């Protein structure tokens, strides 16, 4: 709900007036109010009054204020739309002396989940690298503070899925887990009651492992080609990952940073006699080749 600044001012004046009314209960003869101790959000209810004649009824809630003229001696019907926000409410009856009573509106059953899954990409086989947190809300987006069981269901692209359970405390529950051995999308679903939210985390290859290249020589050039570049779990590093080739010969040092395409990295160097060639991918070093001077 948005209010303009003059609107705010009027609202504050009204609240200040009501507060004044609250601190003066029993100033004169007052009508009686009988309110329930707790009410579920979005549930209408009635407040019984005693006495006779007309009175002004105020209901002050966390997000709005209600003012109504009522007949004493009858039950006051509070609409469901007047108690949607959870929190502490104050009912005030003025005739003209004022009396008040407070009651609590609690969240309705869970109806929404805000589900945070972090990070969106994670290297495979990394312990405690995935965090999941679920916040449980009712249909009016009140945080449900009563404990609720949340089921986290993890479904990797390959391999068996598994579940973890958590019970909310103050509206939130969370879990940690490690990434699995294989790359690919992992779907994580959080469920509470019949409400579920899905997120996908991408498991990606870790650092290159066992990086190897081979040389194909022709005339005065050498073509270097890696074997399919994989991590220690056998996952292929994604295309675009940079592989650095370095050649040292009598002409000096030559380097090419080339991206993996279709799983392998390939470069071509010219040769001027004996040469020493090495390959690396990030911090992972590969094999070295010594080419003789006949080339």
């Amino acid at each position, binding site marked *: 709900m948005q209010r303009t600044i003059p609107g705010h001012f009027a609202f504050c004046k009204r609240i200040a007036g009501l507060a004044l009314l609250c601190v003066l209960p029993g100033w004169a003869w007052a009508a009686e109010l009988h309110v329930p101790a707790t009410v579920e959000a979005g549930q209408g209810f009635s407040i019984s009054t005693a006495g006779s004649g007309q009175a002004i009824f105020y209901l002050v809630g966390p997000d709005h204020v209600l003012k109504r003229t009522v007949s004493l001696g009858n039950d006051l019907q509070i609409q469901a739309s007047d108690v949607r926000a959870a929190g502490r409410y104050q009912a005030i009856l003025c005739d003209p002396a004022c009396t008040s009573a407070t009651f609590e509106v609690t969240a309705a059953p869970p109806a929404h989940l805000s589900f945070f899954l972090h990070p969106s*990409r994670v290297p495979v086989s990394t312990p405690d690298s995935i965090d999941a947190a679920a916040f449980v809300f009712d249909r009016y987006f009140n945080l449900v503070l009563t404990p609720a069981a949340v089921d986290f269901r993890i479904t990797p692209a390959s391999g068996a899925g598994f579940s973890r359970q958590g019970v909310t405390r103050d509206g939130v529950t969370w879990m940690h887990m490690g990434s699995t051995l294989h790359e690919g999308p992992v779907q994580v679903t959080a469920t509470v009651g019949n409400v579920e939210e899905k*997120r996908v985390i991408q498991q990606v*290859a870790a650092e290159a492992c066992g990086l190897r290249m081979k040389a194909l020589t022709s005339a005065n050039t050498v073509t270097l080609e890696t074997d399919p570049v994989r991590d220690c779990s056998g996952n292929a590093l994604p295309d*675009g990952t*940079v592989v650095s080739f370095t050649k040292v010969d009598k002409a*000096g040092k*030559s*380097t090419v940073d080339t991206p993996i395409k279709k799983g392998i990295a390939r470069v071509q*160097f010219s040769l001027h006699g004996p040469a020493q060639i090495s390959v690396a991918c*990030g911090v992972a070093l590969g094999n070295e080749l010594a080419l003789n001077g006949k080339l």
Partner: protein
Amino acid sequence: MKWGLVTFLGIATALLVGFAWVQSGGLKQHAMFSAVTPEEAVQALMSQIQAHNYQQAYASLDPSSDTDLASFIRDVAGSDGSLRTYSSLQAAEVSPLHADGDQALMRVRMNWSSALGSLDDVRDLRVLHDGSVWRVVWPKPPFSTVPPQVVSVNYLRWDVIGRNTSQTWGAQDVDSPKVRITSMNAISRPGRVVILGEVENEDTVPAYLNVNATLLKADGSPIEEEGSFDLISHVLLPKQVSPFRIDFPGVRMDAVKSVRMDARALLVPASADPVIAVSDQALSKDGLNRNVLKGELVNQSGRPVNIAQVLAAYYDNSGKVIWVSDGYVDQALMPQVLVPFAVDIPDDIAGRLKTYRVIVNHYSRLSN
């Protein structure tokens, strides 16, 4: 009276003609075509190049120059959107290397100003005595040509679909790339403190990267904060490593207690092409006897790279980064063509360095 008016008009006309001649460069042209020393001949040629009078500059060359007008203009004014096309000759220092009665060898250090800083171009020019004047012999520019061909490129790029802003709190988004500063070294240089190091994109997606450093006093309060500006490769592909250098001019090392580093990465669309090879890298001395790292760049793609920047990291015996230098290449990198480069190395660093690594930043009008 009558003769007085005629005399006055005659003198005024002569003055105006003389003024127009000077304004149109006649003085320089006269100096050029009447260069009585080799230095004057080179200076006059540089003046014409500075004034963008390429045709007159070409006309003043010795007929034995093995170049045509188009090649001469391409050599001095640049082409293909290269950095030279955005530069202008700021100054030229001429010094004799050798001279006799008929010919001389002159060294000219051309200082070009560009939006990316000043660039030096040092050339040794032969100057011949032609009758009463001296004329410069302009060597044929070594433009390489590659036979017409089709270069197959497996075009690889990343695009990013971000989160829909209308989605609720907690909706899924893609994270920024993970980058890591793999080494960092703070050194003291004359009049400044310099932070050097290397940073790696550890992720599987490209990153747009900025590295900032904050120098801290003993009480933890900041002295100064600076960024790496252009002494870094801002776009890093997966597993790519870039050196960085951050200068703090006017700060003394003894005032610094600690350094706070901050590497910030953004997920950006990027392309894996072009691949630029750096071949035949070697430590050497240039024409001005400065220590340089020389080599050649080869654009292995099929499209021109308009502006290239060479970044070099130097390591000592223990593998620590001891200096990072850079240099812009003022020629465009045409596909498959070797383009030389040289970056300066301070003398004290040259004496201590054990090895080095070079990477190339690039800018292409077509792809950007």
